[in-house]
């Protein structure tokens, strides 16, 4: 509101007052006191309406004096001949003051209501813009625009934290539309003091800018800055508005950060997929030449220069050993890399033990392996990945064979323990010393007394436990009564419904 406009309004008000007074003087004889009072009151109200309280009151005072001096006898003097005229004057003064006050008050109310309506419109526009924007950055641009327009400032910028607190990146920049003609300095983070934003309305070095920290759940996500030339001058209501809107901005910035995180996660997933593809390729590329090696070695054993050639036999055996090492390493890297594919189903212990025994048939031809199940006629069931669980049992049987005397029998047992199906493999070997009982499950660990002939990478038990844990089970060690070891694989058990027995 410029002072010159105000002076003009006052001048007009007084000109009107004096003109009215002059006009009334010409016809004073025909006028009643009430006519004069009402016309003066009218001027006071108009003055109040166009420039508020102060003009209204000034006009009321002036009209009071003019009324007394010119229109109440004795004319051209401030005294009154008729004492009742004091009543008229006093009534006029009180009425005009009260009317001016009431009018100014009502007008202030109207202005406030209009401002509030604008704020609400701002919020609803913002909500709609935020919801409509497909990209989080577009939502932020909309928020910056609404804030700038609603506060009527030169610019509004929104920054996001990248990594450290001082590392800010401009996400949205809104400027006054008309300033497009004047070359606006491109927003540079260097001109902006990050220290300022820790105090929302604290000391900002430059009055042309106000910055506030954007926080979500107590975590600082970015900074919002508004600038205006010559200074940012916000009424308390506007500050509240900006505070409220800055929360939208904070949510928008968080959305940008989350979107960035999501694309990072997608990149990780891609790298996982590549890792799996690589493992599959390595597996394929190593198995194929081994197949050739084995087949050719076998052919030489059968009909080479000297049939039964022991070198050729060794080649075939070593190819098998290499195969099991490769399988171990691949399984181990799958376990470590979280690339293990599990397909748990209802399976029977009969199938599990049968498949494991069939798989080790070649290496345990001379061993006596006894199987005892304490479940009677009931078929013990569990929910587990069959192929991986067979591998665990095979590992345990191979260990039992390796670490016990060639004529010592191996006992396999099956039982239920609460909600677990337990398959145990027991040998009469030397057992495992107290000190080594957990360490034997560590990868590449070998006990001091391990026979050199015990081939493998030292991964067998680590893989066995890893495979068991991955499907909700475990592999544990216990010393066997009378000497030897018992390794137990526990897996989630499943119930056999009664009707199947019929």
């Amino acid at each position, binding site marked *: 509101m410029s002072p010159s406009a105000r002076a003009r309004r006052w001048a007009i008000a007084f000109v009107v007052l004096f003109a009215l007074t002059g006009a009334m003087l010409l016809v004073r004889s025909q006028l009643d006191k009430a006519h004069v009072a009402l016309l003066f009151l009218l001027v006071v109200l108009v003055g109040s309406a166009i420039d508020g309280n102060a003009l209204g009151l000034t006009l009321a005072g002036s009209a009071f004096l003019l009324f007394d001096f010119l229109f109440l006898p004795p004319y051209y003097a401030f005294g009154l001949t008729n004492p009742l005229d004091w009543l008229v004057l006093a009534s006029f003064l009180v009425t005009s003051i009260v009317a001016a006050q009431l009018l100014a008050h009502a007008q202030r109310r109207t202005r406030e209501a209009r401002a509030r309506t604008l704020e609400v419109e701002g919020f609803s526009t913002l909500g709609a813009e935020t919801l409509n924007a497909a990209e989080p950055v577009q939502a932020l641009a909309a928020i910056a625009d609404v804030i700038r327009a609603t506060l009527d400032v030169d610019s509004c910028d929104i920054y996001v934290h990248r990594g450290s607190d001082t590392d800010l990146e401009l996400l949205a920049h809104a400027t006054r539309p008309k300033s497009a003609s004047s070359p606006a300095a491109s927003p540079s983070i260097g001109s902006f003091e990050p220290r300022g934003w820790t105090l929302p309305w604290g000391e900002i070095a430059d009055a042309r800018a106000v910055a506030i920290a954007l926080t979500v759940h107590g975590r600082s996500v970015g900074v919002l800055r508004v600038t205006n030339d010559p200074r940012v001058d916000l009424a308390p209501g506007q500050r509240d508005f900006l505070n409220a809107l800055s929360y939208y901005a904070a949510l928008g910035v968080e959305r940008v950060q989350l979107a960035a995180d999501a694309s990072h996660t997608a990149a990780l997933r891609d790298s996982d997929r590549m890792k799996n593809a690589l493992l599959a390729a390595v597996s394929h590329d190593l198995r194929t030449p081994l197949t050739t090696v084995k087949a050719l070695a076998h052919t030489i054993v059968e009909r080479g220069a000297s049939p039964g050639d022991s070198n050729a036999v060794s080649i075939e055996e070593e190819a098998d050993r290499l195969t099991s090492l490769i399988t171990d390493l691949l399984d181990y890297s799958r376990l470590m890399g979280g690339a293990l594919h599990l397909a748990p189903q*209802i399976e029977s212990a009969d199938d599990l033990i*049968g498949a494991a025994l069939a798989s080790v048939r070649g290496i345990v031809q001379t061993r006596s392996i006894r199987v005892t199940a304490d479940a009677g006629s009931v*078929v013990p069931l569990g929910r587990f990945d069959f192929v991986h669980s067979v591998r665990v049992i095979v590992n345990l049987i191979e260990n039992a064979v390796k670490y016990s005397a060639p004529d010592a029998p191996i006992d396999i047992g099956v039982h239920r323990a609460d909600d677990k199906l337990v398959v145990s493999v027991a040998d009469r070997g030397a057992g495992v010393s107290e000190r080594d009982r957990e360490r034997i499950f560590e990868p590449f660990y070998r006990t001091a007394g391990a026979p050199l002939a015990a081939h493998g990478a030292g991964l067998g038990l680590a893989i066995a436990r890893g495979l068991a844990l991955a499907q909700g089970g475990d592999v544990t060690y216990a010393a066997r009564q009378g000497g030897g070891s018992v390794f137990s694989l526990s897996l989630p058990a499943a119930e056999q419904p009664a009707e199947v027995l019929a």
Partner: protein
Amino acid sequence: MLIVDDEAKIRSALRQALEREVGTILEASNGRDAIAMAEQKRPAVVIVDLGLPDMEGIDLCRIIREWSSVPILVLSARTDEHEKASLLEAGADDYITKPFSTVELRARVHAAVRRSQMTPVPGSEAPLVIGDLVIDTARRIVTSAGSDVHLTPTEWGLLRVLIANAGRPVTHARLFDAVWGQAAGDAQLYLRVYVAHLRRKLEADSYRPRLILTEPGVGYRFVLPP
């Protein structure tokens, strides 16, 4: 016999391992040649390596199976049981995982050839005699060392499907569909329990089955002793 493999070294090794056992050996390095050869030369058995340059092994199985009942044996370097099952569903007779032993490969080839040469005469299936076990599927009688073994109808249903596919793996899904059809219930559970019951009745040692073998992650295989 037709060997389909894109690697010359494997074809050569397979040829050397098998040429004494089977007659003429044809070689194809891709799927298109394999289909042409299978059509013209009518091999007794086809060995297919997965990972051919021009088509998926599973598609080759499907195409050959459209017009031929020649046994197809798949070589796979992958250990994905899902894939094995879908290969069997697509028409492959058997699969073998690399690296395999020559002995096992020969046994599979022989079993496949023998199976394809058997001409089933409906209704007059001779009883199977396996050691002291006699299985007469036509009369639904099983005797072990002369004494009767009682099988429930479900066990009979299961056994018949397995014997009808003797020598080759039958997937869990096929077995369940053949025996239980669309019946509700936990397919996996019923199948595991009934197979275990059958083994306990037919096998000398149900943990070391000789007739009904487990194909890990895929299904079961009924084996006829040679």
